[in-house]
């Protein structure tokens, strides 16, 4: 556990995804990081047959016994954390909620440890054809649980190995105001205790962006 910041790594046309991963891996190893296996985050979309409600069912290899589901009805998102068997239940819910296989996304790649930091270099691929979509860099600062407290430290660390591509502000996910069920004043995620579902929600935001791009591309030439 800790605070995780997920940043997309912009690709110019000079280098391919695997080349960038290779380069960043070398850089991390040069910084005395050790590679500790691989990671995988995946996301399936189940769509209602009668309204626009979507259920995102996601897995994170960092939490191998859990399924993170996020229900999105267009107005609000409801997160749900369950056992793995929830996946089997989703098969039962078909066809009321049907899996959109074309929208399945995963991000996978090497996982590094460097002191208190965890770094994961994820190559994002979509649908069964495994089309490459981009790179997502995950940095996890483990001793801290409140994002706002350690953001500066993470930013500095990111700058250390991403250079010009490093973000300068904390991701929007942390600054959006969230309605507080126990209090009239909304709060921001950056002040709240970080939880595993927050990592998954960050991934979901990026996954959804990739999905939108793909759909726009598919629709574009047709029109």
């Amino acid at each position: 556990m800790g605070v995780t910041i997920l940043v997309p790594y912009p690709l110019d046309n000079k280098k391919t995804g695997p080349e960038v991963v290779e380069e960043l891996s070398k850089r991390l190893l040069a910084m005395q990081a050790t590679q500790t296996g691989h990671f995988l985050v995946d996301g399936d979309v189940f769509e209602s047959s009668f309204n626009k409600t979507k259920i995102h069912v996601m897995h994170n290899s960092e939490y191998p016994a859990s399924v993170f589901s996020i229900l999105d009805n267009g107005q609000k998102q409801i997160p749900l954390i369950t056992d793995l068997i929830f996946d089997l239940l989703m098969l039962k819910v078909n066809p009321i909620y049907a899996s959109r296989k074309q929208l399945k996304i995963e991000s996978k790649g090497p996982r590094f440890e460097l002191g208190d930091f965890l770094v994961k270099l994820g190559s994002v691929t979509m649908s069964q054809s495994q089309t490459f979509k981009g790179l997502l860099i995950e940095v996890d600062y483990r001793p801290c649980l409140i994002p706002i407290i350690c953001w500066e430290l993470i930013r500095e660390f990111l700058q250390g190995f991403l250079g010009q591509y490093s973000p300068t502000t904390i991701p929007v996910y942390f600054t959006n105001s969230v309605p507080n069920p126990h209090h009239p004043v909304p709060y921001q995620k950056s002040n709240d205790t970080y939880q595993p579902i927050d990592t998954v929600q960050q991934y979901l935001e990026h996954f959804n962006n990739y999905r939108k791009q793909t759909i726009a591309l598919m629709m574009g030439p047709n029109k």
Partner: protein
Amino acid sequence: MTSENQPIAAMDSLLQASKVNIIPNQEYLLQGSILDVQVQRLLHRLKGLCDNVETAPEQFHDYEACFSLRNIADEQAIHTAPLLLRVRRSNDPADSHMPWQLRYVGNPELGDTKRPTLVRSCFDISCSPSIMEFLTEMGCRLEFEYTVRGYLFRKGRMKITVSKIFRPMNQEPLSGSYLVELSLLAPVGADAVAEDMRVFAEKLKPLVILEKIDHRRIAPN
């Protein structure tokens, strides 16, 4: 980068596990009841028969809600039985940190009179408390709810509950008897356990008659 220790997608490993029948997704069940005035005798006997001798009986006080999910887009599906999902949580403040339970129960398998117990597919899923809102937003309808107070015993892999069902709003008991359930979760093909259950049920006679009860047969259609 080596690919040998690539994590396998969770869904793939789950499907694999389900293929080789190691996921306990079958519930073997016998049901019966005992009059309130006789329940102490039953508890006494169970205490002698079951495993957790020192701690028995374990008490519980739960809330359960049953949701139904129908395919309203499909005209014909309206007449078919809806998918039933049950949510259960402890009412005991000491258990507030415990996960809630989401439970899917399939229809009982029919046509097998030789089998000593009812068998039905069943998923028991631990989940976060957001499940109620999640299901409601999913389009599930709350069908009914109740609270249940009772005692839990274990014998090997068997679970025995002796519980009183209450209507949720006025905490009025539903009947003058305790519901007695003997159940076991096992993977597909573990039919030998049903025989163990029959033998155990035999030991509770004539205090309690545990039977396989097909809910559909007693249902008013």
